[in-house]
C-alpha cells in the first residue's frame, strides 16, 4: 500500500531526512508557489524542476523510479481535465495542468517520504495549525492501518463469497456492501471507545502532552535558504534563456 511504502522511505537517514520539518514545509511551499504561478516556457521549466526534484529524491536515498511512479497517481485525474482543455481549444493550458500537478505532487511526495507523518504534524503544529485538528489527523493515520486491514478482510470475505453473491441481484449486493460498511462503522466506533478507555486507564488528563520540542538548527536555516532559492533560480534561468513559446 502507498502509505506503507512512504512510511518505510521516511525512516531513512539522509541529510534531507534529518532536517527540521518546518524547514521542509517552508521550502515545499516556496516550490509549490513557484510552480503554481509559472506560465512562461512551462515545458522547459518543468524539465528543470523535475531534474531538481529527482536529484533531491536520489540524494535522499529514495528509489527514483518508485517516487516518479507514485507521484503519477495524480495523472489520471489531471489527464481528464487536460484533455477537456485541449478539446476546448486551449492545449497549452491542458499541458500546464498536467505538468504543474505532477511536479507539485512529486514535491509533496519528496517531503512526506523524508519526514515521518507524526513529525510533520508536529511541525505544522508549531507553525500554528490547529492542534486539535492535527491530533485527529494523527489518530486517523495511526488507525488507518488497522481499519483498512479490517476493511480488506471484509472485502476479501465478500469476494470469497463472490460465487453466491454474483448470483444475487445488484440490489442485494448493494445491501450486502451496506451491511459490511455498517459493521465496519460499528467496529470503528467501538474501537474508539476502547482507545478512550485505555487513555483514561493511564490517567489521561483531558489533553495530550508532548515529549520533545522540535529544534530549528543552523543547518535547517541553510537548507531552507538553499532549497527555496533553487526553484526560484531555476525559473529565473529558464524564463530568461528559453526561447520556448509557452
Amino acid at each position: 500500500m502507498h502509505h506503507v511504502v512512504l512510511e518505510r522511505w521516511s525512516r531513512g537517514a539522509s541529510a534531507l531526512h534529518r532536517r527540521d520539518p518546518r524547514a521542509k514545509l517552508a521550502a515545499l511551499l516556496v516550490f509549490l508557489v513557484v510552480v503554481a504561478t509559472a506560465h512562461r516556457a512551462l515545458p522547459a521549466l518543468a524539465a528543470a524542476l523535475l531534474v531538481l526534484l529527482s536529484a533531491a529524491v536520489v540524494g535522499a536515498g529514495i528509489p527514483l523510479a518508485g517516487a516518479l511512479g507514485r507521484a503519477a497517481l495524480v495523472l489520471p485525474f489531471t489527464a481528464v481535465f487536460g484533455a477537456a482543455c485541449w478539446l476546448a481549444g486551449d492545449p497549452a493550458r491542458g499541458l500546464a495542468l498536467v505538468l504543474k500537478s505532477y511536479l507539485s505532487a512529486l514535491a509533496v511526495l519528496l517531503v512526506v517520504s523524508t519526514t515521518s507523518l507524526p513529525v510533520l504534524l508536529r511541525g505544522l503544529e508549531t507553525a500554528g495549525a490547529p492542534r486539535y485538528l492535527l491530533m485527529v489527523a494523527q489518530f486517523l493515520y495511526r488507525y488507518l492501518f488497522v481499519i483498512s486491514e479490517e476493511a480488506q478482510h471484509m472485502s476479501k470475505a465478500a469476494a470469497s463469497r463472490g460465487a453466491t453473491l454474483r448470483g444475487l441481484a445488484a440490489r442485494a449486493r448493494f445491501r450486502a456492501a451496506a451491511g459490511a460498511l455498517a459493521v465496519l462503522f460499528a467496529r470503528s466506533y467501538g474501537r474508539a471507545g476502547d482507545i478512550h478507555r485505555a487513555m483514561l486507564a493511564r490517567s489521561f488528563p483531558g489533553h495530550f502532552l508532548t515529549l520533545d520540542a522540535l529544534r530549528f538548527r543552523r543547518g535547517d536555516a541553510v537548507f531552507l535558504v538553499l532549497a527555496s532559492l533553487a526553484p526560484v533560480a531555476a525559473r529565473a534561468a529558464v524564463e530568461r534563456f528559453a526561447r520556448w513559446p509557452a
Partner: protein
Amino acid sequence: MARLIEVRNLRFRYEDGAPALNGVDFRLEEGETVALFGANGSGKTTFVMHLNGLLAGDGSVEVCGLAVDRHNIPAVRRKIGLVFQDSESQLFMPTVLEDVAFGPLNLGMSPEQAVARAHAALATVGMDAAASRAPYHLSAGEKKRVAIAGILAMDPEILVLDEPTTFLDPPAQRALAGLLAGLPQAKVLVTHNIPFALATCNRAVFFQGGVIAAEGPVEEIVSRFAWDFAPDPSKWNRRQPA
C-alpha cells in the same frame, strides 16, 4: 499481608442489556497472582473495568484501602495498571517511546523523567530497541510487551491483564509468562489459557453468569469446571457441571 483489592456484592447492568455482574465478591492480597476463568460473556472484562473506575456499578470496590469513587479515581488509576485485551487499541501513540511515556507524562512528570521511565520500562520487557518504531509494525507479542511497559512505566501496585495471551503464539506466551513471573506486583490475569495460568497464578476464581461461582487452586478449578481442552477426543463432548 495487606489486602489490595476488596470487592463486595458488585452489580452492574449495561445500558441496553441484561445484567452483566450479579453480586461479585473478590479479594486480592499482596504478592498474589489470581487467574480469572469463565466462559465468554460471563462478565470478566466488565468486572476488571470496575477496578479502576472505568465502569461504576452498585456495591463496593476498594483498592489499596481507597473506595473507587469519583473522588479517588485519579489515585486508584495510579495504583492499578490495566492492560487491555487488544493491544492495538492500547498503543495509540505514533511511536513506542511516546506511547510508553504517555502515562508518566499524565502523572505530571517532566518530559526528561518520562522518557527515562519509559526507557526503563521498555528495558524491563526487553523492548528498548524498538523505542522509535511505530506500534503498527510490531508483532503481537511485541505489542503486548510494549503495552505492559506502558503500564509499568506508571509504577502501579497491581497489574490487571485482560486475556494477555489471546493473539500470541506459544513461544510468545511462554516469554510473557516468564516476564510476568519476574514482576513483583500483585496480579489479576483474565485468561482461557490453562498452562499459562498454571505457570503464573497461585489461585483462580471462576466467573459464571456474572458472579464468582468458585475459587481455589488453579488445578482444582480447572478440573471442577472441566476448563481445559482435553487431549482425549472421547472427552470432547464433556459438558461443564451446572
